[in-house]
């Protein structure tokens, strides 16, 4: 009788073990995914190939800037979120091609292509070591995606086994400004 129980117990144990392994084995995408480097605004975070410091978050309902010799004004159904940041290549020249605004719910907003040609956009030019760039990441997000977001900076949109800087952004942001003129923005 006890032999039957022992066999049954072994079976149940084996099933539990297998289900657990199936559930909790990290997937290939997770194993070879980005290597997070977490920090806050104002901290300089140094990854494998670049360092970044987020300084300030600004919100605006409208943006105005000069692109290719023309005045451009952009409005949005949500809100424009601007992050003033400082980027530096280290130790070699690099393109930091990806900036993502990840909302508290986990939705990923890639930097807006609607502001192409705006002055001092980060992530468009190549970075050189020893020549830090100060500029802007501009995102277009719904209002409910603003609070408690994270800024993700990496060399590509889906970094594989490479640094992804994750900067925690303010949980309680300011009221959006009605209009921000990028030409008059104080970066320092």
């Amino acid at each position, binding site marked *: 009788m006890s032999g039957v129980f022992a066999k049954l117990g072994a079976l149940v144990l084996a099933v539990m073990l297998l289900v657990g392994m199936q559930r909790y084995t990290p997937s*290939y995408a997770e194993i070879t995914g980005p290597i997070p480097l977490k920090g806050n605004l104002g901290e300089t975070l140094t990854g494998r190939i670049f360092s970044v410091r987020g300084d300030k978050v600004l919100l605006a309902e409208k943006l105005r800037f000069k692109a290719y010799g023309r005045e451009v004004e952009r409005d949005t159904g949500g809100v424009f979120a601007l992050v003033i940041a400082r980027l530096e290549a280290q130790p070699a020249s690099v393109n930091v091609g990806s900036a993502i605004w990840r909302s508290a719910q986990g939705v990923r907003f*890639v930097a807006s292509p*609607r502001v192409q040609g705006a002055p001092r956009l980060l992530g468009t030019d190549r970075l050189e070591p020893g020549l830090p760039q100060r500029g802007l990441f501009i995102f277009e997000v719904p209002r409910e995606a603003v609070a408690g977001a994270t800024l993700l900076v990496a060399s590509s949109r889906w970094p594989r086994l490479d640094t992804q800087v994750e900067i925690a952004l303010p949980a309680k942001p300011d009221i959006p400004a009605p209009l921000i003129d990028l030409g008059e923005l104080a970066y320092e």
Partner: protein
Amino acid sequence: MIVSWLAGLRQAVSSKLTIGIGGLLALAITSGQSLLEALEPPVLPALAAGAPLDAGRWRIVLHDARLTTQSRPDGSPAPDGAQFLALDLDIANRSSETDNSFVRVLTVDPPVEGLQPNPTFWLLRDKAMLSALQPGLPERVQVVWRLTPGAKAPERLRLIVTGQTFKPRDNLLAAPGWFNPKPVAAAILPVTAAEAKP
């Protein structure tokens, strides 16, 4: 002697039976498949202009289709007097990531003669080309097809909307994504004639 011969016979018969049953099963499956393929394709649900549709990754609302001489919204007429087919639609990204695969969401079927493939998507808010849609921010978009000069303008346009399904883990990398594009609805829109020149 006889016993072993009988056993051998039994084995031979059973293996032949197994092979035969397997072959028959394979035959049945393939003929069933070809029968299913030969059947009429299922009728797609009709999508009316102005009605919202959830096509997996996108939520779209089709509006009016019209002929126009403008190659872009609020632009000047094209210099060679070419004609364009413009369609207004509302589109929202329902996924959790910025995306630009909206170009594959609409197909003209049956194809219209003289209508050039690969339409341009214009963001009406900016009057500029649409390069990506942010999740949760619906936009009014104009799709513009170019008509080959001299081609007869269509009176009606049948569009097929392609939907995709979300998989939390794909088969290759176990990463989440949108897969299996499939037609989910068909819309027949009347094409209104070109507006009179002001």
